[in-house]
């Protein structure tokens, strides 16, 4: 025992030494390497207000002058920065070249535009609305200009350089939008807008949507609050009912019941039986051995629904975690964007699987009716809710692809959604107007799912694994 301890201590020491050596090589010279470049290429110290102000003055030399302009389609467009706006903004202690990163060169022209996300890495962390506006450039909303345009080829919504009469307008004022004002949203979310926005201003997703979609940690809409309250009442009721029974001989004191029950859980977790419980979790809960024993087709139907939901939940939770731990990383941005190839295809495949599972189950219950399948109302209700949630999800996706005019090569990743969008495009309805209502139908169906969770058939999502784990020994 002692020798083993000694050996592991030695191994730990060696590993720690290797780690330290690695640190010394990898990290000690980080600063010196950077300063080598800056030995010749001197610039103002943008980490101090003095450097920032002196850098700003350099730009102001021309851009404060009311006469500074550029020629655009035979018209003069002002390039004057209005200090009364800029000095009021929260960027007043930021140097111009920190946002307009590629203008300090010749020719004096920006190709990339402002680089907001270089500093606002965690832009998805703040209000939940950012995630659904991922293809909208920041300045399109946050600059006080009424004119926005959709660049279909670049799949971007950006500030327009022209007004409704196609006359060039100046964007140099640097007046930012007050995000509390309603016009902030309605400049795009208006009927018959040209940027592919739905007419209705919709709330962001709620955290309960995490079962299938990446969503921010917020309640977002009262319908979800109502659903959660109903669900909590159901859960508390179920737990109260369970704790009415006796626990290890204790019948009256709930405190003692909790104490004894938690003691059992603790002793199982920290004992060798933990591995047999893990065994049960792996085979019976994850691989659903018992359902397989009941029949292959039954297992297939259940798996189509269960694994699809499980995979979607896993991906969206992972996205949320990644977005929190490593905001702005390429992977996080890709996973948050529902139009990115992987996410779109993944969501459509899992959605199709769920629909196929529901359809197959319905077929068995109401058409082929094998003898061993007994149908109760509860089963039908659960199947209908799951089926409708998925179906409306696809319709909402199809309408979104249709109205946002996502380029075909991007939209095709969501193969089912794209197909639906093509079919819907034949129907002559104002889809920008309809989108909001369809979104609410989908959201309310999910709220219904949440509220119904502890009461009907759906509670097996929690109770079946629990009873399998509790009865692990009876194998």
């Amino acid at each position, binding site marked *: 025992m002692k020798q083993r301890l000694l050996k592991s201590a030695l191994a730990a020491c060696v590993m720690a030494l290797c780690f330290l050596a690695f640190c010394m090589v990898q990290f000690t010279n980080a600063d010196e390497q950077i300063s080598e470049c800056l030995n010749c290429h001197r610039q103002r110290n943008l980490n101090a207000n003095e450097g920032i102000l002196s850098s700003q003055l350099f730009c102001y030399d021309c851009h404060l002058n009311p006469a500074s302009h550029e020629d655009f389609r035979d018209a003069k467009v002002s390039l004057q920065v209005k200090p009364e706006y800029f000095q009021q903004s929260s960027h007043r202690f930021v140097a111009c070249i920190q946002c307009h990163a590629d203008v300090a060169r010749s020719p004096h022209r920006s190709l990339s535009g402002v680089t907001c996300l270089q500093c606002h890495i*965690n832009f998805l962390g703040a209000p939940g609305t950012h995630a659904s506006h991922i293809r909208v450039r920041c300045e399109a909303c946050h600059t006080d200009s009424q004119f926005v345009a959709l660049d279909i080829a670049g799949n971007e919504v950006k500030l327009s350089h022209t007004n409704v009469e196609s006359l060039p307008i100046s964007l140099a004022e640097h007046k930012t939008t007050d995000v509390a004002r309603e016009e902030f949203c309605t400049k795009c979310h208006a009927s018959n807008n040209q940027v592919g926005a739905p007419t209705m201003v919709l709330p962001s997703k709620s955290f309960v949507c995490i079962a299938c979609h990446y969503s921010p940690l917020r309640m977002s809409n009262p319908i979800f609050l109502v659903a959660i309250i109903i669900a909590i009442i159901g859960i508390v009721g179920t737990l109260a009912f369970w704790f009415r029974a006796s626990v290890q001989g204790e019948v009256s004191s709930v*405190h003692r019941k909790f104490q004894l029950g938690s003691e059992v859980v603790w002793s199982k977790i920290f004992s060798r039986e933990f591995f047999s419980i893990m065994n049960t979790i792996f085979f019976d809960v994850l691989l659903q051995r018992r359902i397989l024993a009941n029949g292959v087709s039954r297992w297939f139907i259940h798996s189509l629904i269960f694994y699809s939901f499980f995979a979607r939940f896993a991906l969206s939770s992972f996205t949320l975690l990644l977005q929190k731990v490593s905001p702005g990383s390429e992977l996080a941005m890709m996973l948050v964007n529902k139009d990115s190839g992987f996410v779109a295809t993944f969501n459509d495949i899992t959605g199709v699987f769920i629909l196929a599972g529901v359809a197959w189950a319905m077929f068995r219950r109401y058409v082929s009716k094998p003898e061993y399948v007994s149908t109760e109302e509860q089963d039908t209700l659960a199947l209908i809710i799951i089926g409708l949630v998925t179906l409306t999800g696809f319709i909402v996706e199809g309408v979104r692809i249709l109205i946002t005019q996502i380029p075909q090569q991007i939209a095709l990743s969501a193969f089912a959604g794209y197909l639906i969008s093509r079919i819907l495009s034949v129907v002559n309805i104002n889809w920008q107007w309809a989108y909001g209502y369809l979104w609410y139908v989908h959201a309310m169906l999910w709220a219904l799912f949440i509220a119904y969770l502890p009461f009907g058939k759906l509670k097996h999502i929690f109770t079946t694994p629990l009873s399998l784990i509790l009865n692990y020994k009876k194998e």
Partner: protein
Amino acid sequence: MAEQTIQQETFWRFSVLQRTVHLTVMFAFIGIGLTGFSMAFSSMAPARAFAWFLGGVDSVRYLHRLFAVVLYLCVVTEVLWLIYYKFILRGNLLGPHSICFTKQDLSYFRDHIGYILALRNAPPPFERFAWWEKLDYWTLFIGMQTMGLTGLLLWFPEFFSRFVPGYFINLAQVLHFDEAVLAVLYKFFIHTTVRHFRPEVYPGDWTIFTGKTTKEKIRRTHPGEWARLNASVQANSAGER
């Protein structure tokens, strides 16, 4: 624990809740210490390596705050437990079973120091929690409030500088760091040594992890509690007769 009889060799000392809170605090404290010091000593190579390993300073900052929230949730749990103990279980917060300091702890402290200096023959009859156990608990409990407050100031400087002058943020930074050093020194050296490395308990006192303690241990380390247990058992058996 009146229902336990005198014949038993093992006794329950900590409930599952207390064990869970201790485990959580333990890991969160290690985590918050590692992330915090890797930020405080960001000019040093091992700290940079650690930050790189976690995915950059943003992740370190995020994890540090996550651990802080977890730690503070543990404090909230303890407060809720004390409320539950007082009002539902009808426990006495100044009674012999309580973790709270009482006047008696002062005299026990004096007697204990006397015992250590060989001025007394026997240690005082400690109740369920001895003075250094209470100290361990309350240093962390109170430390969490001050660390939490200075931490919040550093987390939301824009918000707090609406109410307090700007130099409070610098002050918070200094205090946060200094108290972090104090807390880490206390927990990693004094607490660990007193609880696990004393010759009496070396290589470790597992009571807080298993919840179990022995008759012998109670008799030796908490004689007051032992006497009370005996008295209650005797009273019970007398009542049964």
